[in-house]
């Protein structure tokens, strides 16, 4: 899994590239959490091709850690298969997901 900090101004945009499974989820979680500060975060999921059970926990831990730091994570543009997993398991209710980065940006700008 490749984790890239794509943008770091008033908003952080972090992209994921690869599979989020047992072999990658702990590191991915730790890498993203290390990047968290007060700024809002958009995690681009477009190239995340799979999320396993441990991957779901990583996404949830990231969101919870962000909240504890007083900010928020929006997961943007997850592929259909990943959305399906989130819906079936109900994690969709605990993770904020939107269809595009632009939509996530709009939400953050409205929040301000």
């Amino acid at each position, binding site marked *: 899994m490749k984790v890239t900090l794509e943008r770091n101004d008033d908003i952080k945009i972090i992209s994921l590239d690869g599979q989020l499974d047992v*072999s990658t989820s702990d590191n991915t979680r730790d890498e993203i959490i290390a990047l968290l500060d007060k700024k809002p975060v958009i995690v681009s999921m477009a190239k995340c091709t799979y999320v396993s059970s441990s991957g*779901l926990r990583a996404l949830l831990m990231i969101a919870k850690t962000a909240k504890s730091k007083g900010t928020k994570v929006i997961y943007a543009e997850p592929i259909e298969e990943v959305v399906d997993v989130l819906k079936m398991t109900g994690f969709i209710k605990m993770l904020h997901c939107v269809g595009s980065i632009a939509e996530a940006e709009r939400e953050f700008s409205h929040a301000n």
Partner: protein
Amino acid sequence: MRIDMSPTDVYGDFKIRPGLFLENGSSIVPGGVNFSIYSTGAKSCELVLFHSHEKEPFAVIPFPESYKIGSVFAMIVFDLDYENLEYGFRVDGEYNFERGNVFDKTKTLLDPYAKLVSGRNVWGKQPDWSNEFQYRSKVILDDFDWEGDVPLQTPHNELIIYEAHVRGFTKDESSGVKYKGTYAGLREKIPYLKDLGVTAIELLPIFEFDEFEGAREIDGNKLLNYWGYSTVGFFAPKAGYAASGKYSMQADELKTLIKELHQNNIRVILDVVFNHTAEGNEHGPYISFKGLDNNTYYILTPDGYYYNFSGCGNTLNCNNSIVRNLILDCLRYWVGTYHVDGFRFDLAAILGRNQDGSPMSNPPLLESLAYDPILKNAILIAEAWDAGGLYQVGNFPAYGRWAEWNGKYRDDVRQFLKGDANRAGAVAARITGSEDIYDRYWRGDCASVNFITCHDGFTLYDLFAYNDKHNEANGWGGSDGGNDNHSWNCGWEGDIDLPADINFLRHKMIKNAAAILLTSIGIPMILAGDEFGNTQYGNNNPYCQDNKISWLDWSMLERNADLHKFFRAMIHFRKNHPVLMRMSKGIPLGYPMLSVHGKNAWQFDNSAENRVVGVMFAGKTADGADDFIYIGVNAHWESHGVWLPALPQNMTWQVEVNTDLGDAAIYAEPAQLNSAEQFIIGARSVIICTARRI
């Protein structure tokens, strides 16, 4: 870094160390996975590891002699990709059939404590029978965000149980949900359940089972083990009931369902089957227990054959201390980890049989369950009979704690409603809480689970649409399913060319049943779909019908809107009257809480030909006002006048329900009664009156 979590040995490519002897099954530990298994008769044991869905193992690791304490083998294997892993055990020991030992080291066995089982991940997908390892244990990441949820704490008195089959509930196209036939699909229907007003959902078995067990083809129809009363894995949720089962995420999907049901104040009760397993008799497959410790887990005859008190080939040896612990571990796991609120025990009388099969007066298993700290608030419901002739309705060893499916309630109410003679006294006893069966002092408020229909038998609509069962589709020449249905077709068998007046009568009979059920003292249980007249086309045993016979037809909800409206209103009526739930704080001065009446007030008529029963409930409303309810049931085919009991001077009766009025059975505005007149209850009709202050 812990010393006792570091590798001590190497086996082939694997770093290993002695494991956790107090654990059962598999668990994730830092850097590895712990595997623990016990077998009293095993000489040796091997851990067999597979990549997901592969036929051949990638590793077979024998437990070293030093990895054993007592009869427990435990080993930690490091650096495993546990999400892509399936495992089993091979156990070597004596083969001596007469002594009950049938060890076979060639069989790869399912972990009896497996929290996830793979192999039937997608419902109905044809298995590869050439694969010798069919039911495959998986390691679970037991980690879930419950958001503060715990099993619900409200009193059991408030229970209104809704019995449903996970798949059948939403599988039909008419359900309108996205994930049909799954836990996720059921979750989509929570708003419906909340609106209906039920406070608990009781799910037919959801422990992993094999829908292909006993699969047959009859007249081109594929028949499956649809109900699932045949457990493969006691700790594992049925993967094929999860939309996410193909990713082995069934635990998450089920936990989310339970969490959201709780958020809507709906409890979850599981129908559990501890009387037998899917391993059958001596001709059945080795799945788990048979190859681990056959004579521990099963009740065997002196020459090694299986006792069959379950009617399903074998009988679990429930009062053996090892099996007892397994059952207790299992129930504690479902309550502690899944936040399940209670259990209904299939053929529970078996749970009270001794190791030689004889009934016990003080069965240790039932006592353990009754007093277990984790199960303290769990609802425990017994189906208090078994297939070996033990019938314990009313005298199930209950420890003041167990409820029972009240089979007499079903039979008496059915017989009375269809107009049988000699049933007035019995039905009055059923409506007033069956205290002739369940002494309230010993059994508490909630011992009687009242039901008129359940999965086993006719639906409520069919009860009044068929005189005879129509089970031809089950392929047994009509020999399966009960014959003592006490059903009545209202004068027309089935639905073809159904005359309108017969249909009207059927709807009235269904409303009569609902009115009685939801005013009776005890815990009411409704079969899913009965509230909108769901039919099984006269099939009273569709255990194998994974098709439209069993699946709820939600289009009926519109067609039979009057039934749904009636059920909903009666459920809300019950909730508004604490006395019906034995939750009334006090009773009005000078009145008993429960009284029975005939055509004349205070004069109950117990004669054979009487078919008119009145019951008055006297209690207090939630805000402390006097509350009177009168239900008058006329099961006769002619109308009868009744005199209602006199009320305190400042109150008068008003009619809220009259099932004789078709779509208008529920009054929009209650109609005041003139107490100087008789009330005429129509033929085969029920009225419900409440008292109004004047």
